[in-house]
């Protein structure tokens, strides 16, 4: 996580990124999702940064296992040699000149933020 600066009692930072995914990921590598355990459901919720109660985890476990049962139909298909399709038109990403094209609208964008100070977004302190 990137720390941008600090003020008394607050730290300014860019929100979490996905780089933690690999290290936080479930240790079990079973490809049988029918066995998605309550523990795994809670871990996925944590990876997704969604607080989940025990009751919710139980309901979610049932729903996710039902959905993965549907998804599982894919595994029967032999796709060796098939190029994965990421985008409908298979066009490559367009590049543009590395120049500023947008005007400065910081105050308009920060007007809708929950907590800002001196042009920075405020979040709870993360580093002592």
């Amino acid at each position, binding site marked *: 996580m990137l720390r941008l600066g600090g003020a008394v009692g607050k730290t300014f930072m860019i*929100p*979490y990124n*996905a780089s933690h*995914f*690999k290290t936080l*990921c*479930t240790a079990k*590598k079973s*490809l049988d999702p029918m066995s998605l355990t309550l523990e795994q*459901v809670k871990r*996925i*919720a*944590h*990876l*997704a*940064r*969604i*607080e*989940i109660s025990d009751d919710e985890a139980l309901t*979610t476990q049932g*729903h*996710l296992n*039902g*959905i*993965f*049962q*549907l*998804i*599982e*139909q*894919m*595994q029967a*298909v032999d*796709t060796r040699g*098939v*190029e*994965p*399709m*990421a*985008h*409908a*038109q298979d*066009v490559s*990403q*367009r590049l*543009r000149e590395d120049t500023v*094209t947008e005007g400065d*609208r910081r105050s*308009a*964008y920060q*007007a*809708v*933020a*929950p*907590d800002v100070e001196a042009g920075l*977004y405020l*979040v*709870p*302190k*993360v580093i002592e």
Partner: protein
Amino acid sequence: MINASLKQLSQALAARQISSVELSTLFLDRIERLNPTLNAFVTVDREKSLLMARAADARIAAGTAGPLTGIPIAQKDIFCAEGWTTTCGSKMLANFVSPYDATVIHKMHAEAGLVSLGKTNMDEFAMGSSNETSFFGPVRNPWDSSRVPGGSSGGSAAAVAARLAPAATGTDTGGSIRQPAALCNLTGLKPTYGVVSRYGMIAFASSLDQAGPMAASAEDCALLLNTMVGFDERDSTSLDRPVEDYTAGLDKPLNGLRIGLPKEFFGEGCDAEVMAAVRAAIAEYEKLGATTVEVSLPNSHLSVPAYYVIAPAEASSNLSRFDGARYGYRAPDYANLEQMYEKTRAQGFGAEVKRRIMIGAYVLSHGYYDAYYLQAQRIRRLIADDFVAAFKQCDVIMGPTSPSTAFKLGEKAADPVQMYLSDIYTIAVNLAGLPGMSVPCGFVGGLPVGLQLIGNYFAEGQLLNVAHRYQQATDWHQRRAVIA
């Protein structure tokens, strides 16, 4: 005026038979009276609408009006509109007043001069097929208030079907324009991926999302599509191609049109009476000079499974931006940053959105990526290749839009998989990136049935022509729900 076509409204405005302020007031009054029952709109701002209407009247008076200047329209609440609350059907954005315009909004209002009547209800973050996942409550189907309007563009569909608006916008990631159009007796078009800019359209699954018009007829859709399309520097997947006039070819005769009928769409799994209405529509096309040929989309049964890997994967990434730091909801109480994220997202998202984020997080995680995400992308290729092969034998593909008519509120809400299967005929079109339409083609027990038309890449003009000719020969699309 309430039931007039966009062309008729355009002529009436040009002839000064009515002003945009008068026309907009007519619809705003109707919204005020009927919306409490239907819940089709989540935001209405009479002052803002009338301000736009007055500007449109000034353009008409000055002789600088376009064909749709002054005509009111309902905007799905997925499009950011400057100064308008833009919620995407979520508690997460219930307080979000957009500081900027989506490209679609800019083109339709600032450029074409349409008047916004407000923002329509939708499934939360466009995830749903019934409009029941909205934080702002379900929308009722104008044809039967105990039934769903479809989703995710359910508010747009109900608004147009009940004539609270002459037309509306929708977005379609897996069927969200076509299925509600079918369930509410509307004509709806999902363009080829990349034709309409996604800038400012709150992202669900970026490689599938596409905006399009929902209206009473193909002609109305063509007029609207003309205002929506075009290359946009701000959308990295926007396609730079010549501008078309989608109304130009509407009247072309259909002699020699080859209609492909995928055998997979005409097997089991569809309500028999719905299927009978679809077959009757195809017989009508034969009378109009078309021929039919059986085609096959052998991998179409894999479209729902592949979609429920790809769309949640993209959603889990897109929705990571809702963290309580920069906009939208923030949980009131938390001890540290991680709790702020976790509580904000737990309280701000509804159950279906959380499920899809979690599926996405799982299929993208280390050790599962190849088995799920890459496999789904390979199957996506197989599905797209099926269409390429089918279009060697035919010009358009037809079949049902939805396997049933509008279902009851609550009927499928408890079982996500049953809900997902209501998009069984529409999802493959998004995976392939093709244009698709739904066109009214009959009724079963008083409820509308939609015929799905699928075209080759960039065949929007042809689809609109095929739909328009059918609408010249039939009057299903002119039937209106009786609103109490």
